[in-house]
């Protein structure tokens, strides 16, 4: 270890959503003068609009802070931000691997939540020094001592002298910085050894190409070096290296062991630079890549279609652009008889899906129709073949299926005790298998369930929130495939299957779901000149039926005093509405009707 490394601290901040991670990051930057107050945009680290609005950090970012400690030494503190949601668990773990320590922020009014625990365990797994920070102590309902106790009892780390702060008003931030310097170990690693860098993030810049964010574990890297990405073997010539300031990239001659920095090397897409991959020097490579690399695999799939079919190309361009910065997003063209041309998109999880949909609508100004989210089913066919199905329309016919499997998750739910009953009912109803229940303290409980992912992807999170007045929190991880009694449910309008509405459901729930959706279709399809039968069917067996009656009246009876304009306006408005309609065989359906049908509400339970 060289002299320089002694004064470097690499750390992350981990927290449950809304516990104040980003605000604390801002205060740390501000306090250490990395950013002056005046120059600072609120929550600098979250630099996507959507992140700022939703108060979540979607993609990791890093920033270098110069801090003069009270011991008189200048320290370099590298803050590596982590995504705060379960969907991005793998990315979180890679960010943590780039650090020696983590600040665990806990809201003093809420206490430990599901993601607090999940993140803390991840940090422990990465051998990080955890420094608890109790936040929001300016609020009247703050209970610092209770939360201190909770951290010690539940997580098992000493919290006796941990900083208690208010990031919002900037109280006791100095104690946090001191704790970083004093408690978190300096990075190890040998600057003269063969190069070994961990990629913890990357992002696409239209001038520089992909900017790769790395933590140098061993060795030294400078511009002109030829690097190799160990998972793919791809080689690039380094154009530039440097550090990450609060205002962007700061070019430097080299980066070496212990440091956090960036590399540009004329790389075209972020998919080439996978998070967790190891960068080494092509001429003097390291013998072993860093452990733990895996590809981010999508778990949830949904069809995304432009509401206006003419905007298919716009949608493709938008997805291409998002993909530049989001290696976890996958998409391929898909054609639906009902919805026309669109894309089958794969996401890490539900939040990831929502974020992508929202960014498509907001940043690219697209109106979308999205089909119900689906998971990947594993099917053992009678001929011995094993297939994976992510699109319900491709589900094989029952007589060719030997065993069907669905993915399950280990769900951990933390809730105030008074909601336990309602939440247990909910989990039961969603085919959850109860594992255990642990009291965190006298008021809060942690529940563990094994649940089919397919039951979570619909609206489980909303239902959980509504049954707990918003207090319950959820975390989940994949727990493998289980055999299941699944059926494919089709919907027919006027005798024709609407492929976009087909989904896979557990056979016990097929009838209730079929009836409910048939009713919703009935309520949302406007009357046409003929009667429209709606049927829900498993194979050729119809299990629910509704009818949309024929349109009888659509007339402007009175057209007074020669006011032809009024009649024209009315017709024009009607025509506008009609243009948005999707034609399903002989039936016209508005995009809204699709959405309404797909959105299951509380009464669907």
């Amino acid at each position, binding site marked *: 270890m060289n002299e320089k490394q002694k004064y470097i601290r690499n750390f992350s901040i981990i927290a449950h959503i809304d516990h104040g991670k980003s605000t604390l990051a801002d205060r740390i930057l501000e306090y250490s003068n990395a950013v002056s107050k005046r120059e600072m945009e609120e929550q600098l680290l979250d630099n996507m609009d959507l992140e700022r609005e939703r108060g979540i950090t979607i993609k990791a970012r890093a920033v270098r802070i110069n801090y003069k400690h009270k011991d008189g030494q200048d320290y370099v503190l590298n803050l590596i931000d982590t995504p705060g949601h379960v969907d991005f668990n793998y990315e979180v773990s890679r960010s943590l691997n780039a650090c020696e320590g983590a600040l665990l922020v806990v809201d003093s009014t809420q206490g430990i939540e599901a993601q607090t625990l999940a993140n803390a365990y991840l940090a422990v797994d990465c051998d990080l020094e955890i420094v608890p920070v109790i936040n929001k102590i300016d609020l009247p309902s703050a209970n610092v001592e209770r939360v201190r106790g909770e951290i010690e009892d539940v997580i098992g780390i000493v919290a006796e002298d941990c900083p208690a702060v208010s990031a919002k008003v900037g109280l006791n931030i100095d104690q946090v910085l001191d704790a970083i310097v004093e408690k978190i170990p300096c990075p190890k690693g040998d600057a003269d050894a063969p190069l070994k860098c961990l990629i913890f993030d990357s992002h696409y810049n239209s001038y520089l190409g992909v900017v790769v964010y790395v933590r140098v574990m061993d060795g030294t890297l400078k511009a002109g070096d030829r690097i190799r990405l160990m998972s793919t073997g791809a080689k690039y010539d380094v154009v530039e290296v440097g550090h990450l300031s609060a205002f962007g990239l700061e070019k430097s001659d080299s980066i070496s062991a212990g440091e956090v920095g960036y590399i540009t090397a004329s790389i075209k897409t972020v998919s080439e630079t996978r998070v967790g991959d190891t960068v080494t020097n092509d001429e003097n490579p390291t013998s072993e890549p860093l452990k733990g690399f895996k590809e981010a695999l999508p778990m949830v799939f949904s069809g995304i279609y432009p509401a206006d079919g003419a905007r298919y190309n716009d949608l493709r361009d938008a997805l291409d652009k998002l993909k530049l910065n989001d290696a976890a997003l996958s998409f391929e063209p898909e054609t639906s008889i009902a919805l026309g041309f669109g894309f089958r998109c794969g996401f890490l999880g539900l939040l990831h899906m929502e974020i992508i949909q929202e960014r498509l609508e907001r940043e690219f100004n697209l109106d979308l129709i999205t089909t119900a989210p689906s998971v990947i089913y594993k099917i053992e066919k009678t001929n011995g073949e094993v297939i994976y199905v992510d699109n319900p329309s491709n589900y094989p016919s029952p007589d060719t299926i030997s065993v069907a499997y669905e993915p399950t998750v280990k769900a951990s739910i933390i809730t105030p005790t008074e909601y336990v009953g309602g939440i247990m009912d909910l989990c039961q109803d969603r085919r959850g298998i109860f594992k255990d229940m642990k009291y965190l303290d006298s008021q809060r409980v942690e529940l563990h369930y094994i649940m089919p992912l397919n039951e979570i992807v619909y609206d489980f999170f909303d239902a959980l929130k509504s049954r707990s007045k918003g207090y319950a929190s959820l975390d989940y991880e994949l727990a493998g495939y289980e055999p299941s009694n699944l059926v494919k449910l089709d919907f027919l309008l006027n005798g024709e299957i609407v492929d976009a509405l087909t989904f896979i459901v557990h056979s016990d729930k097929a009838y209730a779901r079929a009836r409910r959706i048939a009713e919703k279709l009935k309520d949302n399809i406007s009357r046409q000149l003929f009667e429209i039968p709606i049927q829900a069917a498993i194979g050729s067996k119809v299990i629910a039926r509704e009818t949309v009656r024929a349109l*009888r009246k*659509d*007339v402007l*009876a009175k057209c007074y*005093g020669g006011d032809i304009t009024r*009649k*024209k306006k009315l*017709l024009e408005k009607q*025509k506008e509405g009609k243009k948005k309609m999707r034609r399903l065989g002989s039936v016209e359906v508005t995009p809204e009707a699709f959405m309404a049908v797909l959105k299951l509400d509380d009464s669907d339970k």
Partner: protein
Amino acid sequence: MRKLGAYIHIPFCEKKCNYCDFYSSPCSEGVRDSYIEALCKHIELEAPLYKDYEFDTVYIGGGTPSILTPNSFEKLGKTIKKHLNLTQGAEFTIEINPGTLTLEKLIAYKSQGVNRLSIGLQSTNDQMLVSLGRIHTLKDFEESYFLARECGFDNVSLDLMYGLPNQTLNDLIETLEEAISYQPEHISAYCLKVEENTPFGKIEASLNLPDEDFEYLMYETIVEKLRENGYSQYEISNFSRAGRRSQHNLKYWLSQEYIGFGPSAHSFFCGERYSYKPSLSEYVESLSKDMLPVKQLEENFEHSLDKMDEYVMLRFRLNDGVNTSEFYKEFGKEFAKEYPQIEQFVRSGHVNFDGEKYFFSTKGFFVSNYILTQILKF
């Protein structure tokens, strides 16, 4: 000489009805007088524009035109006759609200050449009339009606409404039979449409309105009952004895020209559609300075109907529908080729084709907006 219609708007009533969203409101006699002043000024100032035209219809609508005093009306009537060239025997209609009519008023109408009355009966059921917010009873109507007949008015139209809150099919049949028993020359039957910003609009959910299937049943009943009794339908909501169609209203559907006077009145002249702003005060103020009120040209929409679409839309309000040879004469194109979507509605029985003209069936009329949005090209 080219022909024109005149529409004159009287934006006053004694009390606003619960369903009404036309430009009209109660106000004092003083305001009414200054309005008639302005209206006459308007006609006078604009008349030179129409010196090469003849007016073969005049329609005084509202509001409640029969609220005007005999003196006010005479002033208006004289101005019309003095400045607009009326043809010999021009159809001259005034709308009447039962309960506002007197012998003196009828005499004034007669003296100014009014030869057609349109009376707002709406229903023969007093309870129904109260719920609509009408100011009259069936008895008031009968008094007005018979008084008009005694004064020699031999061309009278009755307005009826259906699809009313709590209205049963029997209620409707009763109203129809009673209306027929008065032997009017013309009957208009309009389906209640609950508009926003009306008292009904605010309480729509609690109104117990018939559903659309029931409304259609009522419409079918009206069409049949009136036909059986010698009233043939010529427009979606209009029925008449032979030779008694409303010449003025027909102008709207036949794309003929008409000139509106008064706030909110609409005009179609020299290929342009325009209207006056629905503001009584601005109208009166502008004319008090000898200035014509500002014309609001019809807005241009992105997907606006062109002349051909407009023609089709208007003609299809009539039982005569679109005559293919007239269409060819007008546009030099074949209707069936221009509007190929029409065929599916012929097949479904919503549109009839007799080899010469396409016209809506009764059930077609009642979904005419839907059909038009399917067939028009805009």
